[in-house]
């Protein structure tokens, strides 16, 4: 079992890419989970601070966002002008190749969103949650467990709501997948995570937590809480 000091060394160096042992430690040690939460919050502040305005852009784009730079420098224009053809969409480069299973892709996504590990009683800001839900075309009914994290994430080519709800079994990740419709519920247990993907509305909802969480009960609560809005 990893010790707290070693965990904090690892988390302090790379909080967004913890190894399996460190993830297990965070799940079992509330103090280190809290420490990790502080580091992840710090990283968000660092990222915001690093995103200085780029010349020729209307506003600083979000990390990974789609803001298009306006080319305003004469030399840059000269360079660009020498290039024949229009603009191709780079995403074409990423199409193709074998696809992972939905469960594998979900776990891989969680590896990049370690907020899923943090136990907290602090709710996500209303404005952030509201925007994520609106973009995802859903509403949450009353009685939903506390949502401590909300983000609009790119997943399998679509922007989907990624929520973390706090339960008595610990934090549970909820991904609302409007564009993924499994024929029947799928349960998985991989890499220290247990998950369940349930057909719902026009697509599905995935709930993922640490091994041992009562997925059945949590999934039922989440399904009851999510209200799908029309496109």
């Amino acid at each position, binding site marked *: 079992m990893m010790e707290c000091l070693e965990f904090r060394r690892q988390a302090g160096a790379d909080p967004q890419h913890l190894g399996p042992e460190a993830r297990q430690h965070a799940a079992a040690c509330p103090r280190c989970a809290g420490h990790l939460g502080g580091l992840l919050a710090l990283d968000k502040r660092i990222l915001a601070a690093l995103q200085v305005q780029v010349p020729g852009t209307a506003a600083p784009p979000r990390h990974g966002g789609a803001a298009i730079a306006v080319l305003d420098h004469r030399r840059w224009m000269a360079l660009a002008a020498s*290039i*024949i*053809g229009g603009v*191709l969409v780079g995403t074409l480069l990423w199409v193709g190749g074998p696809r992972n299973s939905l469960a594998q892709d979900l776990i891989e996504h969680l590896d990049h969103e370690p907020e899923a590990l943090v136990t907290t009683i602090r709710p996500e800001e209303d404005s952030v949650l509201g925007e994520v839900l609106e973009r995802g075309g859903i509403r949450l009914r009353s009685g939903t467990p506390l949502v401590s994290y909300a983000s609009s994430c790119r997943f399998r080519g679509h922007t989907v709501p990624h929520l973390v709800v706090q339960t008595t079994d610990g934090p549970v990740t909820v991904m609302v997948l409007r564009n993924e419709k499994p024929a029947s519920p799928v349960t998985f247990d991989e890499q220290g995570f247990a998950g369940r993907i349930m057909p719902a509305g026009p697509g599905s909802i995935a709930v993922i937590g640490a091994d041992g969480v009562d997925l059945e009960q949590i999934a039922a609560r989440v399904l009851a809480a999510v209200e799908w809005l029309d496109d």
Partner: protein
Amino acid sequence: MNAPLAGKNGEAAFATLCNELRPDLFRFAFWLARDRSVAEDVVQEALLRAWRSRDSLTEVGAAKPWLLTIIRREHARLYERRRHVTVPLDELVGSESPELAAVEEQETLDVRRAIFALEDDYRGPLVMQVLLGLSTQEIADQLGLTQSAVLTRLFRARQKLRRALGGTVDGEGE
């Protein structure tokens, strides 16, 4: 040898690539130089160099690290040429970098000041990791360091920032 940016199709691909990566490249240059005008010069020169040597890129997936390397080298060249004059941090923040002085949120300004004050050895890896999304191994490859050295620098960079921003710091004196 396959050169994805060579030929006529390569020209359009190069334009697309530069357009997509330009915000990251500018910001990387800015945080290397801590000076907006220097960063703009570095990016322009680096893109021209990249354009001239585009045939040397053999894999599209390697384009970002390839361009970052060119940016770093171009910054080093410019740094050598200019032999930067030492400027007090407050003066630098207030006069040379309007975006630092004009930023709307006080919290963001505080964090920027703290990042500005980090030594190059700590600021560079942190920018590569948090802003550019490079893995610690990719950062090590960029900087010619061991992965372990990169991890240490990243740990200390965050430690210094937390201290500068008034947070509690674990593992001090390790």
